[in-house]
């Protein structure tokens, strides 16, 4: 997924580091007075918020593209969809926890170990049907 959203993932990393460094500084001296003396916080935090809005928008555009490519993806909610798309890379088996949302009659998609290719489906009662 990060290949599709390369610019956005860079932006997110920047936001994430900025937020983490600021918060760790605050954690060292949690009193309000000390935080007030830390210098200019408002400016960076405001841009950070704006950047997050931009990020959210481009994420939505990306999700809409995915859904148009595979219209059944309109039915799962956004967190579920992100989980499904995340399984597209690396963890293909992860799709099985959501597969019944996409294909109601299927409980499990069968995956060949040697080359990570799907070759069939298993139904709710354990009946196996090969693709074809």
């Amino acid at each position, binding site marked *: 997924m990060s290949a599709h959203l390369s610019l956005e993932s860079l932006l997110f990393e920047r936001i994430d580091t900025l937020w983490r460094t600021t918060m760790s500084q605050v954690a060292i001296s949690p009193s309000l007075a000390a935080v007030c003396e830390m210098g200019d916080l408002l400016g960076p935090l405001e841009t950070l918020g704006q950047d997050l809005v931009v990020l959210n928008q481009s994420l939505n555009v990306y999700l809409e593209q995915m859904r148009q490519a595979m219209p059944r993806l309109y*039915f799962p909610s956004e967190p579920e969809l992100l989980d499904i798309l995340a399984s597209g890379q690396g963890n293909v088996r992860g799709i099985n926890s959501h597969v019944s949302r996409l294909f109601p*009659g*299927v409980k499990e998609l069968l995956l060949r170990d040697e080359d990570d290719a*799907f070759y069939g489906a298993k139904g709710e009662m354990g009946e196996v*049907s090969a693709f*074809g």
Partner: protein
Amino acid sequence: MASTLLFRCAVLHLSGCAGRAQIIEIIPCVATRGTNGADVWLPLIEKYLKDAVRKGIDCARKMLESTERMEWMLANSEQAVRVASNIFYTDMVEAALLDENRAAMLQQLVPMKMGEIAQVVNNLGYHMDTTVDRHKHMSLCILDIAQRDSLIALLAQDPRNVHDFAWQCQLRSYWEVPRGAVDGVVRVEVMRRSFVYGNECVAAKSPLVWTDSLENCYKIMGTALSMQLGAIISGPAYSGRSAYVKELASFLGTFCVSVDCSLHPTLGVMDRLSRGLASSGGWVCFQEFSRVNDKAMATLSLALLSIQQAIRAKADTCMISGEDIKVFGTRGDTWGPPPCCFLTLLDQRHGEVVIPDTVRVLFRPIHLGTPDIKVIIEVLLTATGFNQPTVIARRLLFVYKLLREQVRTVCHAG
């Protein structure tokens, strides 16, 4: 796209053929390595699953003519058995109706069906290897009983030909090879409207018992579909409002997404679901629709209007919240009924549920009564292996009524 496909070739020797005839069967797999993501291989999985179902039905249909019925049932998948059995039934009845001596021909079919039911029920008394086998027996038995009852009803109405309303209002399946195509498809007819079976791999569950309530509901849903409308189904608790929708969806080989509206879907959710409805080919059934707020209802009704207009005009796209969305059937997928939306409502004790007219005009209203429990108990008992279910059914019905009186005070289903 082609590079993502791996083909496993299995070379099978045809033993019965003279010479060295070989059939090369190509079993497709969906490769996931080297692809960008799930959006590439998920559509392929969808396509192959549907292909597998279609081939399964074709195989079951061919086998039925040459194989003993019980053997045939065990060799094929439950879905293929259901569809093929209905195709065969439709063929038989139409052949009888086309015959000059149609009353006698129809009359002959009834004892034949009775014999088939007796055979399945008899088999149910024996040990079965798997739950799937038992499940198949049950499904086939329920279907056979439904077909027997429809036959008896048909006989009573004395249809003159295949176009008689008594036959036209039943659910009929045909196997057809479209002109110019190599592969055949299943065509399903409901109330003079013809659909191509969606070949969706439907969840394995027993078919609903055929009751008058179900039959009437099918008839109205059939006419609603032929007018490109959805249906608002209202009725008391446990009258089978959403179960009927799912049953019709599985009969037409499409999938049905149920949305529980007691979670108060937001505008965004409605927007997302209507886009899915337009482009995926699945149906959406909103349960307890009265709990949806006005704005979400308005979003849905606008989107539905746009979808219905696009289907009527055979347009490629429809407009949903300012964006063009492709309508199902234009991406080259020729299988499956058009998008359709259903709403279910619980009968309120205090007055009518208020559904705005803008929503109401997009649907046909259906009101359900409680189904005939006695019939359901009898059929289910038969389908679990009871030869003479009437006496036990009467006792169970009595128990059921007593129990219902006990739990009446408990608030259920909302």
